[in-house]
């Protein structure tokens, strides 16, 4: 492939943030197809529009997902990107890697593909960006045989689950997000690779209500760590914070002089449930009123820790706006123990109850959150076999239009109009 002039992209080589253009040029020296990536991207910068065709169904035998077909609409000018299919490779939990593993994967990708990647895609996969149809099977062979690794999800299937770094390096994680994510990913390989759902379906696992993997905004089933006993307090450390000896919020505000730490202003007054106060130099919390928002724990990490009776809150139905508008997940199970000992039996039963119902009533390209909106939350909780609790709602309904069922009303719905008229003339 020849080098192309890229005067517009060249302007993205200056500035302090690392430049993807400089990087692509460096790679092109040993992998000349990358010149055509730069060439076509330059054309898009000139024309201010994409030059990729719509769709193209490609894949490897036996899988219905994991590869996204893509073709250039100007292949005669940029033959190096005539086919530019993306491969999604399932990422290890919390995105830890050994350099040995990464180097091997890069060797494979230079051999079979464009040598361009994303670390990572929005759902969490390793994205290998651009290869030809005839390279897909050889790449997949090498990926599975030489590396023991596998593709992720795409299409109307379970997408590759993702988790925060959890207990591996965070003191707040209320369950082992990595092990849960890994276990369920292996448990549901068929659902990830062979699309059988009305639309895409995502799991995300966050260890605490800070929700670092955005489970509540982005996953159909959001598993977010929480606890149901008391916040653990180290009163000696509280004193150190009050005395200004420990930096507030783990030092995250140290770039500006915000004045001396004020436990009232920065912790107690910002508590959304007003359930904290100082008694002398001791911090008190009325834990039964606490909604576990994490603010006080975030601000005083050396003094406060989540309680010890830990589990997760399960919420359902988040999605981005297409089509009926964005949805956050809705709380369905306030507290569930998430434990490997029983192989996540309770969580798996929950997931499969959702799927069995959604696969039957969900419309084509309807996310489960939209299905729930369409049939109503009361119907969904009946399907799930859970009792209605006020924790599921922000406020009680503001209209009186209850769908009473016949069996709930004394005497049922059947009545005789003649009997009625005998007492009530028309």
């Amino acid at each position, binding site marked *: 492939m020849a080098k192309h002039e890229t005067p517009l992209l060249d*302007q*993205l080589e200056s*500035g302090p*943030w*690392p430049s993807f253009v400089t990087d*692509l040029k*460096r790679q092109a020296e040993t992998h000349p197809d990358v010149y055509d990536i730069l060439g076509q991207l330059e054309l898009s*910068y*000139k024309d201010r*529009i*994409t030059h*990729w065709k*719509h769709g193209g169904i490609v894949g490897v035998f*036996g*899988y219905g997902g994991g590869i996204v077909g893509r073709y250039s609409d100007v292949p005669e000018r940029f033959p190096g990107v005539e086919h*530019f299919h993306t491969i999604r490779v399932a990422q290890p*939990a*919390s*995105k*830890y*890697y*050994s*350099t040995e593993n*990464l*180097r091997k994967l890069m*060797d494979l990708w230079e051999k079979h593909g464009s*040598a361009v990647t994303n*670390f*990572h895609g929005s759902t969490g996969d390793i994205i290998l*960006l651009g290869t030809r149809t005839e390279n897909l099977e050889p790449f997949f062979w090498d990926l599975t*045989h030489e*590396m*023991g690794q*596998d593709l992720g999800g795409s299409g109307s299937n379970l997408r590759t689950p993702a988790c925060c770094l959890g*207990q*591996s*390096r*965070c003191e707040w994680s209320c369950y082992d997000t990595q092990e849960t994510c*890994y276990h369920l990913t*292996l448990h549901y*390989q*068929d659902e990830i690779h062979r699309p059988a759902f009305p639309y895409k379906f995502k799991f995300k696992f966050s260890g605490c209500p800070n*929700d670092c*993997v*955005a489970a509540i*905004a982005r996953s159909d089933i959001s598993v*977010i760590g929480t606890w149901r006993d008391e916040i653990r307090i180290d009163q000696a450390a509280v004193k150190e914070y009050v005395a200004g000896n420990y930096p507030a*919020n*783990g*030092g*995250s*505000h140290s*770039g500006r002089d915000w004045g001396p730490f004020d436990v009232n202003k920065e912790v107690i007054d910002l508590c959304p449930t007003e359930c904290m106060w100082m008694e002398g130099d001791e911090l008190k919390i009325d834990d039964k009123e606490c909604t576990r928002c994490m*603010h006080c724990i975030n601000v005083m990490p*050396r003094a406060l820790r989540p309680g010890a009776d830990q589990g997760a809150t399960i919420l359902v139905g988040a999605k*981005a*706006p297409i089509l009926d*508008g*964005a949805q956050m997940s809705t709380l369905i199970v306030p507290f569930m123990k998430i434990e490997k000992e029983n192989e996540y039996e309770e969580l798996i039963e929950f997931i499969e109850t959702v799927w069995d119902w959604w696969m039957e009533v969900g419309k084509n*390209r309807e996310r489960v959150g939209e299905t729930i909106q369409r049939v109503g939350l009361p119907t969904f909780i009946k399907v799930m076999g859970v009792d209605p609790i006020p924790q599921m709602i922000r406020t009680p309904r503001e209209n009186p239009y209850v769908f009473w069922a016949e069996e709930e009303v004394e005497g049922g719905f059947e009545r005789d109009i003649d009997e009625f008229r005998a007492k009530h003339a028309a």
Partner: protein
Amino acid sequence: MGYNPEKPMEGRITDLGPPHYEQFMPAVIQKNKGKWLWHEIIQPGVLMHKSETGDEVYTVRVGSPRLITCVHVREICDIADAHCDGKLRFTTRNNIEFMVDAKDKVQPLLDDLASRDNKFPVGGTGAGVTNIVHTQGWIHCHTPATDASGPVKAVMDDLFDYFTSMTLPAQVRIALACCLNMCGAVHASDIAILGIHRKPPMIDHKRITGVCELPLAVASCPLGAVKPTKAEVDGEEIKSVKVTVERCMFCGNCYTMCPAMPLADPEGDGIAILVGGKISNTRSAPKFSKLVIPFLPNNTPRWPETVEAIRKIVKAYAKDARKYERVGEWAERISWERFFEKCDIPFTEKSIDDYRLAYDTWRTTTQFKFTSHIK
């Protein structure tokens, strides 16, 4: 060995899933998993986690363009080999994390990173701007209304000092999605950069019969703007669709379902800015981002209007918000009318919702502020 196209199913291995995570974790992480007690950001981009065993792990967080090549990944590996026993991780916001098990190993790592031009900026912690979560744009996608890596580079160049420092009232999460499909899930970000279309789809009658299931194209429109019709191609009548233009909200869902309905356009496409979303449950509930700037043009290669708009919002927020207050919490406290005024953003009817559930966003109280909007 390798794949044999003559016998494609022979020796095939499937459904392996991802490799087990534990083999990739640094030794100090493996040993202390579940035992961490507290953490502290000791300088921008450097975190220290303390374990109940007394162990410490120092993490150096480094920005990345996300779109990276094999050459760049190998350079990341070189750094991890030299300093971190060959282990590293990536964050959900596309940062790289290098971990060492002793404080005296931090400075040599920082020096090494600094010696590699600007490829490995250290930062993205605490009350600052961390890396921008984003999508593909023109490098790979068939439906984008803007590029992704280019605008991200331009915005991060401009906000770079906020990446390497911790001077803001709280963290500011910026995300970019190059069309309304929102693969980047920007809908709950402090500042969202969203590619939008503004021209209705064209109908490629010559192609539609071969590539499109007409009932699916009709059903794809959430507003019923796509209707069946007949068209003439080379003197022959064919079944096709038409678009009721005044009902089109430019979501592009029809193009997703039907390749014969392209809608991207150099003048029609551009960027909308939404602000005030958050994911975390801290203090207030998670919130969606709200549309405050309906359109900015795709002026390549550096999107100056978008860069300026975001800088103005971040500066106004930095000056005015209280410690810990996220952009959305700040806007709600000072009122949205004041937000528009302080950020010097003209308010237009485009910020008044007229889609489903719009009424939830209308003001139904006598409480308001007399800002410059009231003439």
